[in-house]
């Protein structure tokens, strides 16, 4: 990636486009942020109040009073981090098999995996709950984590990326006597940092925001995750908007952090050395 030291026409055009569109992207988020500091009666003042007057910090206090929010935060972090690492490992192993290896049943199994994405989880939630009860995993971290370690999305994503990697390096290593496990670990994975980062971002975001399963599997407030906590502010007749926004604002931070930290993998190109093109 060449670094442009002077602003070319292309760069200026890019900036204009980005500034304009980013504004559109961000407006609802700004409303969310400002509502987090509003009095309940001000939430629906129209036209929308962008700067809350008065500012109500009590919303945040109430969030922590109504719920064991700090504990939920911890739960979300533990669950999401574990699931993310699980996804990265398990999905990459499977994607490697689907693209680098040749064995009977390979494509059929891949199609079978793909089809797992096609059945809505709602209709299987009751038997899964009963299974968790039989395992004794209700209201425990195991229940929150283990059944979600499979990511067909991740397998599919990684597969599409692995396909584009040239097989020359693999073949060279195999000829030199390396096992497929070494090829996976020392060649394929290091070359896949961008897509692994993308998967890390999505897995973390996805499990952080996952709502239905954690809701079903947890009973006690101190095992719940953040999205479940957020939903608790909704009632049959009313929604506590200012408190939900306050909680959401806090909740968004780790996801943003994971996203930003992974950005460095999206600014290096792939340098394939030692290959004759």
């Amino acid at each position, binding site marked *: 990636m060449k670094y442009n030291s002077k602003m070319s026409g292309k760069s200026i055009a890019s900036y204009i486009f980005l500034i304009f569109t980013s504004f559109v992207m961000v407006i609802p988020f700004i409303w969310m942020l400002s509502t987090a500091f509003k009095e309940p009666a001000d939430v*629906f003042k129209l036209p929308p109040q962008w700067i809350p007057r008065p500012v109500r910090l009590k919303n945040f206090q109430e969030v922590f009073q109504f719920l064991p929010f700090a504990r939920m935060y911890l739960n979300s972090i533990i669950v999401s981090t574990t699931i993310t690492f699980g996804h990265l490992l398990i999905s990459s192993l499977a994607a490697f098999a689907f693209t680098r290896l040749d064995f009977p049943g390979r494509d059929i199994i891949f199609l079978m995996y793909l089809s797992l994405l096609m059945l809505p989880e709602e209709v299987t939630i009751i038997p899964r709950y009963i299974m968790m009860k039989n395992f004794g995993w209700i209201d425990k971290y195991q229940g929150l984590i283990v059944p979600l370690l499979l990511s067909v999305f991740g397998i599919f994503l990684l597969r599409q990326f692995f396909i584009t990697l040239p097989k020359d390096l693999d073949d060279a290593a195999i000829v030199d006597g390396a096992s497929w496990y070494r090829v996976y670990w020392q060649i394929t994975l290091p070359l896949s940092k961008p897509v692994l980062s993308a998967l890390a971002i999505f897995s973390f975001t996805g499990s952080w925001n996952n709502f239905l399963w954690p809701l079903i599997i947890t009973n006690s407030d101190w095992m719940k995750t953040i999205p479940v906590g957020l939903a608790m502010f909704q009632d*049959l007749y*009313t929604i506590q908007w200012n408190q939900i926004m306050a909680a959401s604002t806090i909740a968004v931070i780790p996801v943003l952090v994971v996203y930003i930290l992974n950005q460095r993998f999206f600014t290096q190109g792939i340098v394939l050395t030692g290959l004759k093109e």
Partner: protein
Amino acid sequence: MKRVLRNTISLILVSIFLSVCLINVAYSEQITLVYAHWFGNVDYAGQAKAAVEAYMKLNPNIKVEILHIPWAQYWVKIPAMCAAKEGPDVFNIDSAALRDFVDMGVLEEITPALLKKLGIDLSTYHPFIWKEVKIYGKLWTIPYGVNPSYLIYNKTMFDKAGVNYPNANWTWNEFLTAAKKLTEPASGLTPGKFGTLTNPALVNYWAQYIWQNGGEILNTQRTKCLLDQPKAIEAMQWIQDLIIKHKVAPPPDALQAMGGLPFMSGRIGMYTGWTGIGVLSYNQIKDFEWATTILPKHPTTGKRTPVTRVGGEQVAIYKESKHKEEAIKFAKFLADYMGTGGIGFIPADTKLWEKYFINHPRTSKVAKASIKMLEYARPNPYTNKFTELDTITQEEVNLMYSGEKTAEQAMKDATRRVDALLASIKKK
């Protein structure tokens, strides 16, 4: 010899000690009850929590665990738990689902004999409540609140527009006249002000107009929908006119943009609110003055029928509960406690009215009007699969509110669909 004697004595002492412990344990058997609710409101949930804590203090051998399940997933989780044979012992339930739950055999009947045995006296409860919560003439829940509709109005808005406040002599004609004077159209990005507002749900709103007009929703046996009858259509037409013809009520998407309680935004002059959780929000209003009065009456029939419901203000006992009697006792305690919290609804037990409703700071402004409206109350036509009936009618009514269907067309379509639903229920 000495050692054997010493060991034997020790063994005997230990055995006695253990037996005493075991006996204590056996007598003070710790019972755990699980209580599920959906309360997202801080005060509401807080009252339930306080009730539980008070109960545990009075009954040290009972532990009550609260299960807070958000409303949207309440009916996902309760069935899942029951399927795994561990449903909550006590749980809140809404009248819309009550009949289904009774038919599915999920609830334990609370018989008069059981009430007598546990020393529970429900005789001071308001009689309307039994009309709604008793199914097949039997009791399945302990109700704790009831919510009739009444008229709530924005005094400041009335003052600004120079309109006289609603009074007990008002008919819907005066209502409409006042609403017109209170309405200001939208301009640019500022929404307008509306004299009143509507609601697509029959149990929250339009049933009252149909009944006041002399129409019916369903027949008495609840086997046929009567919304396509002239009196019902006439009533719905009047409501649609509020939005489309007179423009004194906001269209459906404006309502959505105002969130859950539009009255709080200060842009609604008056509407037929109801007690319950909305009252807690009204208490947070700072920008304007508000007051309540009884509903206007119908100009020709003179009826003043509100929409009234116990709704979700009731708790049921799980049929497979391992501690049914303790569950019922806890349920009654909870009901009483909830009634003393001033959290919005009219307490089911009339004994609590004086101190905890009429004179409670949070509910004093709605007390007089709502209690008066109870006199005119009619129970909603709850059936099996009522949530589906509700969805069907809401869909049609929403299309009527947005002007895509005439009142007549919407009601005819609703009747057709509801009849199909009722027929499918009858088959069983």
